[in-house]
């Protein structure tokens, strides 16, 4: 199954650096491929190095593309992570 979604990052920390590692951890739990697109750039959502290069800040728009057998669950969890605005989670 292939799911695409445009998501505005409302997580106050954006998706650079530390939150990126949490994102990658979630992405790697699933079998589905995860691709993150910001403007012209497109990177694997399972690669910490690529995602950090993307340096997506709070308020920027990302397109997330999830493709695979568990795409639905994966998208749900990733979206929740990007849009949550509460307390900083434990990212260890």
């Amino acid at each position, binding site marked *: 199954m292939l799911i695409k979604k445009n998501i505005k990052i409302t997580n106050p920390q954006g998706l*650079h650096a530390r939150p990126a590692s949490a994102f990658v951890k979630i992405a790697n739990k699933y079998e589905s491929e995860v691709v993150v697109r910001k403007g012209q750039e497109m990177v694997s959502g399972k690669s910490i190095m690529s995602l950090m290069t993307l340096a997506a800040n709070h308020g920027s728009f990302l397109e997330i593309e999830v493709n695979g057998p568990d795409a639905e669950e994966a998208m749900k969890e990733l979206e929740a992570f990007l849009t949550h605005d509460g307390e900083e989670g434990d990212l260890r």
Partner: protein
Amino acid sequence: MKLLNGIAASPGIVIGKALVLDSEDISIQQKTIKESSIPKEITRLQDALTMTRAEIMGIRDKISHEIGQEHGDIFNAHLMVLEDRVIIEEVMERIKKEKFSAEYIFSQVLKKYIQSFLKIDDEYLRERVSDISDVGRRVIRHLVGDQRSSLTDLKEKVIVVAYDLSPSDTAVMNRKNVIGFATDIGGRTSHTAIMAKSLEIPAVVGLEKATHTIKTGDLIILDGSAGTIILNPGAAELSKYRQEQLRYSDFNKGLKRFKDLPCITKDGRRLELAANIELPSETDSVLSHGADGIGLYRSEFLYMNRVGLPSEEDQYQAYKTVVLAMAPKPVIVRTFDLGGDKFLSHLEMPHEMNPFLGWRAIRFCLATPDIFKVQLRAILRASAHGKLRLMYPMISGVGEVRQANKLLEEARNELRAKRIHFDPKMEIGAMIEIPSAALTCDILASEVDFFSIGTNDLIQYALAVDRINEKIAYLYEPAHPAVLRLLKMIIDTGHSKKIWVGICGEMSGDPLLTPVLVGLGIDEISTSPVMVPEIKKIVRSMTFTEAEDIAKHALTFNTGDEVIHFLKTKYQQGLRLSAGKK
């Protein structure tokens, strides 16, 4: 024979073989491979990745076990970089296409990422570069079959010579076989110096070109009291220093006698002689050296080398461990002193032109009250278990003290509401380390129970000398008349306002200056655990009246050099100078 001059960082003399650690750059020769060797090259890469993975996991577990979970966490971030599929696939693709050795391609790929991270205007990302380089170095070391011996499994006793030593280097190294440190950069208050002192390993820092001049296996004499290294010494030097070494160890054994004696002058003036620590595990050393308490517990170390913020519970446990180990002796916890030279790995601190004058310490804490109150609650909770005192760093005026005390009162109320115990009489202090605080300490005195003079920063701010810049290290003068006048003013004012005054910078561990501090009327001295016996011996060898005369006289000179000359003469005349100092 060759003499290298550096900065004395941790006292003692060691003679031994050098182990020179690589400089920081990843530079690998470009080497082409045959089409037929490509599968072999890929296997080599995979093996190296597997070995690196095992190595990092091993370090993580060792650190978590020995120093604490929070220090091990940084290595989980390293694992994530190592296991990055995009990187691994890119390296494999390029090996097949370009036909260069795995180490060459791997270092090229890493360099590409590092360069792109350095371009992004994000301090946190730029700091991650050192993690990535660290992982990269490990992989490459496995690929090239290693020249850099790991500090963990040393077979013989060595003196480590490096450009700089990171907290993770010092944390994993084999403490039995590392007998000395020598580094190219750093000052008396750099991480390497502080760590060497707490591990009781002689060290010289700020040698500038030690890693270029010294080769692994060279015989060297390191004199951590004088700040010198003798490379390839002749027979005469060797025998001279062996004697020095014996004298120094006899001297130290002699000092052990002082362990259980009070720190008191001949005419009965009692001082509290305490020790500075960074990690809870150092309390053993504090007690074995006979300190009266802990005068500076640098709590920010709880925040370093980890991914998340330490929770209230984590902090409470750490403070409680220290308080219980020391009880009934007092412990002063300094609230977070972050920023400046301290590496803070997870808060996204903006890049600053002048970090020492920037958003750090109490300024940062007051701006992020939620983070600060977690610490205040943890400290209050720990105060129920012994004698805890709290102090605020980098106070520049009374407003900051009032604001911090208000947050402290809120924290107390939060605990009361939950019926959690704390010591309602816990003493609160202000660190006096900014000239504006020194000049207004009469005003500050009404808001706190004690002052602790932080000389490292006080000297740096009063003399406008960046204390980690080796080029101007000669201007960093603890005996400068301006510094002595500030000390006198702070102590006199504190006493006239009926509060006690301590001192906790490196200056408090300099035996030459002890008579001046005592004579100025200091109530508490806090220094590295290793320096405690020597300082105690000096205090016990003089009368307060003698010390007062020395202090009075020291204040009459025009330059720091004159003060030092005067004090050395005084020592030669009667007060005995430590055998380790020349």
